[in-house]
């Protein structure tokens, strides 16, 4: 149905306008922006945390700015306030799930013994610390900065 296709296309390519639009448009725009920014934040935080194996140009500063930028983009891409709040919530949730998966996955892919899960305690403690101290605050400050910027320009 061309109405549905238009809505999906609009959500993906014109998210700002789509955020003021109908239900499907808003859903597509919020999911698209939320998932991409959440995934980016988790990937950048992984490089931020494991600097030993990071490429030379993947410094902590760059990765932290990418996380901040991902929060900023959530608001800049979605004009309507409630849609953007939903999107930052989705972004933080996806970021959390991805961070945890990135850490736990190798143990199951590579079949490394976890002693019934106990061996995961320390890596998970690190993940949660970085989530609460860096990922969520950085993303949220990016989001709030964009909100202030948007309000300033209104």
């Amino acid at each position, binding site marked *: 149905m061309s109405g549905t296709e238009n809505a999906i296309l609009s959500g993906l*390519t*014109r*998210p*700002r306008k789509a955020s003021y639009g109908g239900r499907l448009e808003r859903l597509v725009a919020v999911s698209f*922006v939320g998932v*991409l*920014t959440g*995934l*980016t934040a988790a*990937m*950048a935080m*992984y*490089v931020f945390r*494991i600097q*030993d*194996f*990071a*490429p030379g*140009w*993947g410094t902590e500063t*760059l*990765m932290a700015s*990418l996380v901040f*930028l*991902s929060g900023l*983009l959530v608001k*800049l*891409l979605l*004009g309507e306030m409630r849609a953007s709040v939903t999107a930052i919530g989705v972004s933080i949730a996806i970021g959390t799930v991805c961070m945890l998966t*990135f850490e736990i996955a*190798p143990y199951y*892919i*590579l079949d*490394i013994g976890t002693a019934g899960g106990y061996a995961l305690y320390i890596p998970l403690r690190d993940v949660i610390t970085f989530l609460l101290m860096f990922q969520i605050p950085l993303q949220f400050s990016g989001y709030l900065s964009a909100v202030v910027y948007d309000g300033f320009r209104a």
Partner: protein
Amino acid sequence: MSSLTRRLFLGTLLAVVVVSGTAFAVTYGGSLAWQQRDQVEVGVSSSDLSADATTMNVGLTVTNPLSRPIVVQSISLTMFPDGPPYDGDKLVDPRTATVPRTVIDAQSEQTVTVTGTVKDGQQSAAQTAVSEGTASASGTLTIGFSDRTYTINVGN
């Protein structure tokens, strides 16, 4: 908002995803290789003595099946005149064992030579052990992987 600004924001989003994705792929590959570091194998391929029986040279074949290169950094090696259980006296002082710093590329193997000084008074025992072929090496090899190091047991 203008279509230029719209494209700028969408472009920035894609750029951010690509940059963090690239850095993540490199880092995650390194992390996965580190978690498989126990697949690096070290085997003793040769052992011989210098003419005056004061220096022992041991050839170690290091196999690196990982996706990243590793660096052979240092060694603590000794030679026993018999195989395990190691009942005899040490023939070589482990602190004198040295190995040249070698980079072993991903998925390749290389032989490095360890040189050690035979302990005073053990020269004849060393000559006997090497000529009879019963001399066996035992020690730990320190391997560097990116910025981290770990040790592998050699011999036994």
